[in-house]
């Protein structure tokens, strides 16, 4: 831990990039609290969710944050748990990021769940063991405990064995929790476009990709693009891993779409066809989230680290659309049970656009993450301690 004072805490070098990040952080943080205030005043009326579209942007952002957390945990485990030497340096920074992102996710979901206190009580008193949400929530609580302990033994009271033990526990529980989050959607028998094995598996894969993007962003910012040799070597290797993961993801997506469209199965084919024609998919999820970063890595043979850092910004924007699409596309098809023309209107694909309050809380969560990361970077030494690994 570093010694710190309030003066130190708010002192930073006034470079244009630092100032931009400071303004962005403060702006998003203000949006978060403004959104929360509006939610406290108006409750769920402040959101644009409806009976036909009960989940919206806040669920997407929760998934966005916990995917980021799990991804950072998995990528950090390459060095910290599996002992690959070049990756040991990212341990502390990645685990700090994992704790921060999942905390932001919990902060966002607290304003989506109608009764979070009731949840904590009855999750324990009358657990719904057949519910993927119960398993996901419970395992994520455990996961947060493990990674906090891991971080404690990495950065506060250095103890290699204990940090590794908690690292392994965090990784395993995190994987279980995250695939259960996929199952929250995959188990929906009422939604043929989401139902099946795809999401629980794809969630792990997309988490690893998100983790890679975030490592690139954190290191790009940490070293202001002037990477020491040791970091450069690690990032080139990480870039190769990211390229391979993106190739697998593109392969997965192609087969998911083809399988959904093939045979024109009722509800499923029409939903996926509608979803892939929307710019959120082909521009956001596909082009920004997968193709641009993949092309940068492929054309540079994974050597263009600076370009990959910039591509990671686009990648994270793409990941946002990926999470938004996950929720929205699942709920696209109207449940037209014998309601061929409910109240004289022919049923169409369900429409949804987030309200200002939803944007404020959801995107404001990013401000929360940036702020906590800034504090963590000041309070702890997130770089590799010399001689910490043997």
């Amino acid at each position, binding site marked *: 831990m570093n010694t710190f004072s309030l003066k130190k805490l708010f002192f930073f070098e006034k470079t244009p990039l630092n100032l931009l990040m400071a303004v962005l952080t403060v702006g998003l943080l203000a949006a978060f609290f403004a959104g929360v205030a509006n939610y406290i005043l108006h409750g769920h009326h402040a959101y644009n969710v409806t009976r036909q579209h009960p989940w919206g942007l806040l669920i997407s952002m929760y998934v966005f944050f916990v995917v980021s957390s799990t991804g950072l945990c998995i990528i950090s485990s390459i060095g910290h748990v599996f002992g690959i030497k070049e990756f040991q340096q990212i341990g502390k920074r990645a685990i700090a990021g994992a704790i921060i992102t999942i905390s932001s996710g919990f902060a966002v979901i607290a304003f989506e769940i109608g009764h979070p206190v009731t949840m904590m009580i009855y999750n324990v008193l009358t657990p719904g063991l057949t519910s993927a949400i119960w398993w996901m929530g419970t395992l994520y609580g455990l996961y947060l405990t493990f990674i906090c302990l891991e971080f404690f033994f990495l950065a506060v009271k250095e103890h290699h064995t204990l940090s590794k033990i908690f690292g392994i526990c965090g990784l395993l529980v995190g994987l279980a929790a995250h695939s259960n989050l996929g199952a929250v959607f995959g188990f929906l*028998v009422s939604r043929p476009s989401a139902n099946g094995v795809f999401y629980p598996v794809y969630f792990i894969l997309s988490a690893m990709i998100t983790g890679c993007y975030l490592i690139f962003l954190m290191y790009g910012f940490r070293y202001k693009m002037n990477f020491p040799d040791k970091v450069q070597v690690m990032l080139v290797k990480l870039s190769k891993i990211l390229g391979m993961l993106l190739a697998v993801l593109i392969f997965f997506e192609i087969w998911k779409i083809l399988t959904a469209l093939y045979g024109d199965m009722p509800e499923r084919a029409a939903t996926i066809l509608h979803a892939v024609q929307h710019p959120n998919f082909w521009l956001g999820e596909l082009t920004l989230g997968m193709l641009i970063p993949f092309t940068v890595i492929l054309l540079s043979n994974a050597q263009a680290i600076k370009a990959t850092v910039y591509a990671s910004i686009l990648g994270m924007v793409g990941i946002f659309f990926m999470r938004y699409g996950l929720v929205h596309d699942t709920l696209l098809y109207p449940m037209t049970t*014998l309601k061929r*023309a409910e109240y004289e209107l022919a049923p169409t694909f369900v429409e949804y656009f987030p309200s200002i309050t939803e944007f404020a809380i959801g995107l404001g969560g990013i401000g929360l993450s940036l702020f906590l990361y800034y504090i963590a970077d000041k309070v702890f030494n997130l770089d590799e301690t010399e001689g910490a690994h043997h």
Partner: protein
Amino acid sequence: MARYGMALNYKSCINCRACESACKEENGVLLLKDHYRIWVGVKEAEGEFPNISIASQTYHPSQCQHCSNAPCQMVCPTNATYYGTDGMVMVDPVKCILCTYCINACPYDARYVDQRTMTVDKCTFCSDTRLAAGETTTACQATCPTKVRVFGDLDDPKSEISQLLANKEYRQVKEHLGTKPKLFYIV
């Protein structure tokens, strides 16, 4: 212990929607857009003028199917959705955390957020209003002018519903999902 279900002679439905009004009145359902426990769907007439098939225009009264294998019950993280003693799918507002997972999971769009209690509400076959007071019919059934609805105990072979189902052909909605619904549409 009974196992309640409902048969619907849907071809007798005249789309007067008295059932919707009676349900709201009896159960205090708010008069808001998304607030309804039951509804009447309209299947519009098929064909182009002048060859319009009058017979193809039908009305489909519907509501919670009180599934024996209810997806909404399975996904509830706190068991707020539970099976009542008479096989009905019920919600305990005290335990409901308003995660709305059940609304996503229900294949019948039978659930909605009640703005009074801020919990998820649904059809209860009037169990806490009429059945608790000793009545044997639901509000939607009692008010129906063409006697579309027949409510009763599926385990009692002498009940009207059991007799009807024994003698008439019927179909169910989305039964391929394995939900085992307890609403029967007489064809």
